[in-house]
């Protein structure tokens, strides 16, 4: 089940402008980069990005940048504080008529999960609480990518990282619900594999003032350990296995923008990635795999109940 589309019916309707030039130093096949590229197309030209230290910081390294928009780089803990400063500065310039309304910029925080779920959460919580008018894109590659793939609070249960080589026992923090509990006007999960869904969500949020928060699953060939040729395939499996639900919350009201008719087994998603390889060999960790599958099933059962939708056939 897909929700009805309001703005873009087919790929052909999506904006064709590019705001990122090629030539960036990010890994071949980087899902975070695809996501930013797609989101920027909808946001348009007048954007200033506030980046938290992470992989994306490599985008703009003196003297080169792929961006046609503006950029400010902050520490892992403070992109949302930086966004507040920029918004205030822009508002002052506008109020004093030192900048025309046409030149006004939309402020976009760009942060990894290490920053978003952890170090930067306090400043983001405060910014949402103040009702700051800004966009937030968390490209969630489920670990500290830039420094060699260490565990973050977004690393999924069982996944191996540089600091959890046997697979972590901790569960992924539910940042969507943490954000939503702040009652911002808009929260959504997105995936570069569904560019129309992503564009629709950005477009829907455009008329809203206040925090507009986006959580993207950013497939990461380098950290997750798969051939970059599979980047889009892995993103697709994350959705079809139900591991990565696509949803939004407008004024706190949650609805799923895609409910699969039947879930594919999570194993299909996990087995393609080195970070889960220890679950399959040398011995099969059957119980762990069953547990991961159960968590996904429980999630979708509750979605069906809450939204009165047809429950997907479980795997």
């Amino acid at each position, binding site marked *: 089940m897909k929700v009805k589309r309001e703005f873009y019916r087919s*790929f*052909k309707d*999506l904006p*064709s402008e*590019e705001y*990122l*030039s*090629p*030539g*960036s*130093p*990010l*890994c*071949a*096949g*980087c*899902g975070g*980069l*695809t996501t930013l*590229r*797609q989101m920027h197309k909808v946001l348009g030209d007048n954007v200033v990005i506030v980046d938290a230290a992470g992989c994306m910081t*490599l*985008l*703009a*390294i*003196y*003297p*080169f*940048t*792929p*961006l*046609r*928009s503006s*950029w400010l780089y902050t520490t892992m803990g403070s992109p949302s504080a930086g966004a507040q400063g920029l918004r205030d500065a822009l508002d002052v310039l506008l109020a004093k008529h030192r900048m025309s309304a046409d030149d006004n910029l939309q402020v976009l925080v760009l942060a990894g999960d290490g920053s978003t779920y952890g170090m930067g959460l306090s400043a983001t919580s405060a910014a949402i609480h103040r009702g700051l008018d800004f966009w937030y894109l968390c490209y969630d590659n489920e670990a500290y990518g830039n420094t*060699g793939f260490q565990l973050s609070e977004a690393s999924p249960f069982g996944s*191996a990282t540089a600091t959890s080589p046997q697979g972590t026992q901790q569960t992924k923090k539910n940042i969507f619900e943490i954000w939503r509990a702040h009652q911002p006007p808009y929260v959504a999960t997105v995936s*570069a*594999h569904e*560019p129309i869904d992503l564009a629709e969500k950005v477009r829907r949020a455009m008329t809203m003032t206040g925090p507009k928060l986006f959580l993207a699953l950013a497939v990461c*060939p*380098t950290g997750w350990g798969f*051939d*970059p*040729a*599979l*980047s*889009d*395939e892995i993103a697709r499996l994350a959705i079809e296995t139900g591991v990565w639900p696509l949803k939004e919350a407008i004024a706190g009201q949650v609805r799923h923008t895609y409910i699969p008719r039947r879930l594919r087994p999570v194993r299909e998603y996990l087995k393609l990635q*080195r970070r889960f*390889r*220890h679950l399959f*060999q*040398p011995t099969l960790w059957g119980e762990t795999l069953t547990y991961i599958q159960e968590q996904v099933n429980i999630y979708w059962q509750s979605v069906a109940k809450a939204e009165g939708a047809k429950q997907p056939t479980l795997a």
Partner: protein
Amino acid sequence: MVLRIRFHGRGGQGVKTASRIVGTAAFLVGYQVQDSPVYGAERRGAAVVAFTRFGEEAILERGVIEHPDLIVVGDETLLANPAAGVMVGQETATAIFLNAESAQPLVEQYALSPSTIAWDLTRRTQAIVGVASALSVGLAAATARLVGLIPEAQLLSAVRRELMELHLPEGAIAKNLDLASEVFNALPSLEFPLRDGQETPQKISSVLYEGLLRGSPSILNTGNAEQRQTGAWRLERPEVNFEQCTRCGLCFLQCPDGAITLDQNGYPIIDYDHCKGCMLCQTLCPVQAILSKQEVRSW
């Protein structure tokens, strides 16, 4: 004595693992060992350097190897990139190993030392392991053989240990062991005139404080990353078969780097100066209109 080996490659080719395998193998022989990669902003496809030192006494040297005895190059295209620093210190190097079909043209083109040895690791790795870019074991085996101080048995146990640590499946480890043996036995051992003594570490330079404008430079240009030709990262080359292409536009939407544009008729045009060769466009094309060509052969 200390033997210094410097490995060059691209992120994803296994240069770091190669330096570790050689380190572990030398350790198993009984040497004192140090191995380390350079960490920084390296990415899959970008230039990467790793170092192995081994010798009989404790190794007090630290940091990058500026005067290597052996330079091991996993990717010949790095020779064209001065920033990769492949040739740094080649005057004192006894030999250079190149993963290439033949040494002669490259020796001439880049004025390399005449004692440059080339061997086509990519072809054999593709044939035996099945992944052309998984060069770590081949590079390590070539190194072990060339330096002459590491017997095959220790090399093979080091390969097994390191690959097990990476959770490689048993089948893949077995193929890599075959590759290691083949490379080891195909190459000669060289004489290394070993330099005694250790190099004094470079002084740590003090960081000068610069004012805000110089200390944190601003980029006033936009979109100028286009000047960086990431096309050199490519191991495979995607090519569109226009007769089959239905102009669905999927590859254009999903190329992370925006290296695909659509022409007026909606056909995808690939920008080979920048395409990094991730090949996800080939995997996702619904009608298999994108083909893959081995880039290695066209260099």
